[in-house]
């Protein structure tokens, strides 16, 4: 993975000093909160319900084991012993003291990490495919381009005070695993007929209260022009994006208002002035960065390991885990393993300090000391020998990281919600937990198969509810927490925005609502049809009719009043 050179170190070091002084000035009241808020947000520090939350950047989701150990250290020393992986492949800590936040950044800098631009109205952490470099369906490895974008966007002087936040996602595979269609800018690394590398550029996708899929404004942008073209997009947005209404300030609203064609024309006009200028990437620079993403020293292995096949045939639980949590690798004898952070009873994406240390050890022993974070809030060991999968599985189980539920009902994407976030209208974690408890039976989950259930505690859609096959949105009605359900959303190559099925439900009703939706699916599905395909074929109506056919009793969940 990428390593800092003297320049990267210098810039991050100077940032720590700058931020430390900003905190000092805030504590001595030289800065008032209104001035400081925007500064700390650009450094990922949010004020939540109970304490500050610090969001640390994990550039395009890639982590070295020593960085993960640093997270464990931070969790123990500065937090309450755990962290939370987010849908932007970052990690956040929820119990941070303002006074200690500069020290955390100084510690992070020692392992080449920071919290730069993880919040605020600036260019955020660029996200990418968690299987980059190993996926069997990869066209071009997007990681070098993601790193180039990281460097270009870090402290870009012109685009630090945009109308609203700005998110870029990049994917280089047949299957889009980076949700590029719902980003401010989505980039697909592709090859043209001549075999040259370039980008398909999508602009104006997003979620929030106006969910919309991005529009292609350029079919093929030669890779050399990535930075100048992004600069042109940002310059148009910075000048013409709305600033009068926070809910209409994202680039998607501008693109929608003037049309994708007109937006593309304005970008081209801006671009003409800077195209072929000094920002044009050189082969040397691409090579410098690409060097960090060359393949590790893979062993030459047989495509099939006999002992592995025997274990797979003998142990159903192992086979279940393989089926859901292990992905095909482009190198024979290797596989990519997804460690599930969606064990029933644990908030989705949460991980303890001990688990962090443990996965760092796993990475060292099984996967070239690297890990990846997925935007579905799980972790990936990308380079595991097939012959070692059984041993890895047994180890992962002992730490609650082998739930065989990737892509299944309980692999829920969920924001921190009302338990932590001051923006939330409603809690989201207890809903996820109630659903996970109700459908804990793994055989049932495997029977239901691929399904995406996404939960957001408010319209900001951090839990990606719009693109969940089943989306759940927390809403506030007269001070009470209610949940609106949508159906038919999807991420990936055939992205779509879900449709709301009708009036909202109470927290206690939600497990039954899900149960009814699944009953309709089971009745309607044809053979191996996935949930989303059934919804697309039969439409929302049969689901809606059945869910609302009879009143749903408000049944309190078991245990301590989780939804109170």
């Amino acid at each position: 993975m990428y390593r800092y050179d003297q320049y990267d170190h210098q810039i991050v070091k100077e940032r720590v000093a700058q931020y430390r002084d900003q905190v000092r000035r805030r504590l001595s009241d030289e800065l008032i909160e209104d001035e400081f808020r925007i500064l700390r947000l650009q450094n990922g520090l949010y004020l939540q319900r109970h304490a500050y939350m610090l969001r640390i950047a994990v550039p395009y989701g890639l982590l070295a084991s020593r960085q993960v150990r640093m997270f464990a250290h931070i969790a123990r020393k500065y937090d309450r012993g755990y962290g939370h992986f987010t849908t932007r492949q970052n990690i956040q800590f929820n119990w941070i003291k303002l006074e200690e936040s500069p020290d955390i950044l100084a510690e992070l800098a020692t392992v080449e990490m920071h919290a730069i631009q993880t919040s605020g109205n600036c260019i955020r952490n660029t996200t990418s495919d968690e299987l980059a470099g190993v996926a069997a369906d990869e066209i071009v490895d997007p990681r070098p381009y993601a790193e180039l974008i990281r460097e270009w966007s870090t402290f870009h002087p012109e685009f630090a005070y945009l109308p609203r936040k700005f998110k870029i996602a990049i994917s280089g595979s047949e299957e889009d695993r980076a949700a590029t269609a719902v980003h401010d800018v989505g980039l697909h690394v592709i090859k043209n007929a001549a075999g040259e590398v370039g980008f398909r550029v999508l602009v104006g996708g997003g979620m929030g209260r106006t969910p919309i899929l991005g529009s292609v404004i350029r079919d093929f942008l030669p890779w050399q022009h990535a930075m100048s073209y992004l600069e042109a997009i940002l310059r148009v947005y910075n000048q013409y994006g709305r600033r009068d209404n926070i809910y209409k300030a994202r680039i998607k609203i501008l693109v929608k208002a003037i049309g994708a064609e007109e937006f593309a024309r304005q970008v081209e006009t801006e671009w003409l002035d800077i195209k072929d200028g000094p920002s044009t990437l050189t082969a040397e620079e691409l090579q410098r960065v690409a060097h960090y993403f060359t393949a590790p020293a893979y062993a030459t292995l047989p495509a099939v390991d006999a002992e592995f096949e025997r274990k797979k045939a003998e142990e159903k639980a192992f086979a279940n885990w393989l089926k859901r949590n292990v992905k095909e690798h482009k190198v024979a004898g290797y596989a990519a393993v997804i460690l599930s952070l969606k064990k029933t009873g644990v908030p989705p994406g949460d991980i303890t300090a001990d688990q962090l240390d443990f996965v760092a050890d796993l990475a060292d022993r099984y996967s070239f000391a690297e890990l990846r974070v997925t935007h579905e809030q799980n972790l990936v060991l990308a380079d595991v020998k097939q012959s070692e999968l059984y041993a890895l599985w047994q180890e992962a189980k002992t730490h609650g990281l082998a739930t065989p539920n990737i892509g299944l009902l309980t692999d829920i994407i969920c924001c921190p919600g009302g338990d932590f976030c001051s923006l939330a209208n409603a809690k989201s974690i207890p809903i996820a937990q109630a659903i996970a408890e109700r459908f804990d039976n793994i055989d049932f989950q495997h029977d239901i198969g691929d399904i995406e259930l996404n939960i957001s505690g408010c319209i900001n859609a951090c839990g990606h509810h719009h693109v969940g096959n089943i989306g759940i949105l927390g809403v506030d009605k007269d001070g009470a927490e209610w949940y609106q359900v949508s159906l038919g959303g999807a991420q990936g190559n055939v992205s779509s925005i879900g449709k709301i099925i009708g009036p909202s439900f109470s927290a206690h009703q939600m497990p039954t609502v899900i149960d009814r939706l699944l009953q309709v699916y089971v009745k309607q599905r044809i053979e191996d049809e996935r949930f989303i395909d059934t919804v697309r074929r039969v439409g929302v109506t049969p689901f809606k009719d059945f869910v609302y056919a009879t009143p749903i009793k408000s049944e309190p969940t078991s245990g301590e009043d989780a939804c109170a």
Partner: protein
Amino acid sequence: MPNLIKDKVVIDDNWTLLRLAEGETADTVSVPAGKIIVPLTVWQAQRSALQTRPELGVWLASDERPEALKDDLAAFQVIAVDFPKFADGRGYSIAYNLRARLGYGGELRAIGDVLRDQLFYMQRVGFNAFAVRADKDIHDALKGLTDFSEKYQTSWDEKNPLFRRAKRETLSARD
């Protein structure tokens, strides 16, 4: 006389900024003699009278376009860009376009909600003068110009990105 940061030092500001008061209009407001920085609208409305002045400045609001001054740049010793709130970032693109696209080479001044923690970025996009908000210590604000010693990308101040300026070593990807 208020202070101003210009070309990295604190100096006395001998220009006066004209803002339209309530009830005043661009075509009727009287522009005092001397070194005055007028709103774009006043320049546009009173151009024939103003263009004979030996010393004149103009300022752009954050929703105004630098292209509006395209043919007039030579008329001004100072062009200022207003930041109604420091979080309104339009002024950065206005400044960049004034310098890079329109080729303005004179004093480019940030006015309005101009604070220490934004000066580094402002300087990068082409501002060389900063009318720091009056309630702030301008000498303290000066420190904001030197927060960073290196930068990755081009802007007005750096014609070449880091990768064209520096020989960046390639370390081992794994250790």
